């Protein structure tokens, strides 16, 4: 990792660690916006990391944003940071001015209307219109409040419609951001597991000495490693000018599957303590389950990617795999 990115990672870890404790989580998960956390985020420009410099952002790339998003995942950050980062990239790419205030992402819902994560707190939502990406004000929006399994706000807007497009860059950017968050949350869950099994003693020895536990954590670690590589690989592809949908598909499929496996193994290894509210694990695992299904679950993206691979034909399978920038 370059020094620059290492510095970003350090800044994020310190900032999130300072800002987040059980009270902030409890408040955020019952609908109170974590304003102090958000202010610290905006003061450090984390939300505008992908906004071009001439528009007040850091003008960095997805591989830098990935460091912020992985840290956000590690700390289960209950704030619309991923949405803001992706929105910044989408508007910057489309040459659309980034408004002040919280900007989230809007994607069409089955049955009409759009879903906007943190919609109740957001001033705008970036949507894919017929003629490209638009920034829509949510001021006059009829917002229905709801939450995902992570108890983060997942609101919907009935009176705003967006044509359901096959390739929706808002959905793809959201999926790429979620892939990075999942890689971070899964890695943090693994750290909790390793510490727990080395500390928890049963039958006279740390449960980490039992081969069954070791083999399960080895599987979890492999999945965590794969999620991290898949997310970063996709970010590098986009930075190098590659197609956002192809990149997001690969990352969301691999990181989403890893998220499910990591969350389930983490709970199996922790036993009852992992199921309690007081113990940290659930902040990570509930969000892993939620994020898997947002901006397209693995099944959706696998169908999309598979159709393209099949259409390209067997003879192009290997050349395409090696041809990517």
């Amino acid at each position: 990792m370059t020094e620059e990115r290492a510095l970003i990672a350090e800044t994020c870890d310190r900032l999130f660690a300072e800002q987040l404790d059980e009270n902030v989580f409890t408040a955020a998960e019952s609908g109170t916006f974590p304003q102090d956390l958000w202010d610290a985020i905006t003061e450090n420009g984390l939300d505008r990391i992908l906004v071009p410099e001439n528009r007040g952002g850091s003008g960095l790339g997805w591989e830098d944003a990935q460091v912020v998003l992985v840290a956000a995942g590690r700390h289960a950050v209950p704030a619309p940071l991923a949405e803001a980062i992706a929105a910044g990239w989408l508007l910057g790419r489309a040459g659309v001015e980034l408004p002040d205030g919280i900007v989230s992402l809007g994607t069409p819902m089955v049955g009409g209307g759009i879903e906007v994560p943190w919609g109740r707190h957001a001033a705008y939502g970036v949507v894919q219109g017929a003629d490209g990406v638009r920034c829509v004000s949510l001021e006059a929006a009829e917002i229905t409040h709801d939450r995902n399994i992570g108890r983060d706000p997942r609101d919907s807007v009935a009176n705003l419609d967006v044509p359901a497009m096959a390739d929706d860059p808002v959905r793809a950017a959201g999926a790429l951001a979620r892939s990075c968050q999942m890689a971070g949350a899964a890695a943090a869950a693994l750290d909790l597991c390793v510490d727990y099994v080395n500390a928890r003693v049963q039958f006279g020895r740390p449960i980490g000495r039992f081969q069954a536990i070791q083999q399960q954590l080895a599987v979890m670690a492999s999945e965590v490693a794969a999620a991290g590589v898949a997310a970063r690989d996709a970010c590098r592809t986009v930075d190098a000018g590659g197609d956002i949908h192809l990149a997001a598909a690969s990352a969301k499929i691999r990181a989403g599957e890893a998220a499910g496996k990591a969350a389930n193994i983490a709970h199996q290894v922790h036993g009852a303590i992992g199921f309690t509210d007081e113990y940290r694990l659930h902040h990570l695992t509930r969000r892993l389950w939620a994020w898997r299904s947002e901006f397209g679950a693995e099944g959706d993206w696998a169908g999309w990617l598979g159709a393209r691979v099949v259409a390209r034909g067997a003879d192009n399978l290997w050349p395409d795999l090696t041809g990517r920038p």
Partner: protein
Amino acid sequence: MQAFAFEPCELPAGADALRADVRAFLDAEAADILVPARARSWVGFDADFSRKLGQRGWLGMTWPAPFGPGRSALERYVVIEELLAAGAPVAAHWIAERQSGPLLLRFGTDEQRAMLLPGIAAGETYFCIGMSEPDSGSDLASIRSRAEPAEVNGEKGWVVNGRKVWTTYAQHSHYMIALLRTGEAGENRHGGTTQFIVDLSSPGVNVQPIRNMIGDEEFNEVTFDDVFVPDTMVVGEVGNGWRQVTAELAFERSGPDRFLSAFALLKALVAVAGEKPTDAATAAIGRLHAHLATLRTMSLSVAAQLDAGAEPALEAAFVKDLGVTFEQSIPEIAHQVIGASPRIDGGSDFEQALAYVQQACVSFSLRGGTTEIMRGVIARGLGLR
């Protein structure tokens, strides 16, 4: 040659009529339970509902007179599976009726039976199980909560000190069957423990609900500070706790609660697939249906064997391990084939059931022994340990 005893069993003659009665009862008493509540299955707590079951004679059905109608275990099986399939709230009486009652019938005294069984059968006296401790989860033999012989106000008994944890619904229970240390564990580590009936209203008992990650308060921490338990409340033999507990555990490992905990979500998945059928959802449902049918046949076979006095520990462990693997696969499969993003407040029945079961199912493999422990039991049954 490994021979697994899963002799098929026929449900007794009156089973169909009984099943129809239970379904009628459920239509009357539990029709308005919303899907998300049904998804809570056997953690749904409703004392009124339990009392009504008692009035219908469906609690303690297999107990001999004067405590129960002495009906067969398979008749009881029919009642239990109908209640679970409907997601009816059975938590209040669940432990008392399934485990504590049978324990007292087998190891209790006449006095204990007379005092406690009628209340359990009436759906009014609730029990919890005091086994796990902060430092004794899977390693049950390492428990440290102690009962010292003592005499208080001229009554012989025991003074109890210690801490039990993860005790389901202690906050709503009248009694705890507590496994306490009364002597040294000894060579095979399984000695020196005794089962006591602890009246939770006794002075020195403190029950502290533990909020779980879904926001429910199902688990509790129970602490004992010099709690007096009279001699008359010892269950079975002093020092014989381990054997009495393991017999009890084998009994509760193979019931329909071991594979129906996620049934409400499976049912919601079938409904969603009906509205918007896809090949993936249809095939997944066909596969799950085959698994469920097989699990039910295995579970019924074990119930019949238990009824006939056999102790099919290996077969019961198969049902538990296959059952919990099946339950925990349902939210994963629902995610794969429907890919909906579950909203926990206003989402559809399917979304709410998926959101609940996805979180709750990780705890399904903790009750009655974790997956590793169960597979250890199976490995022993195969002659590998």
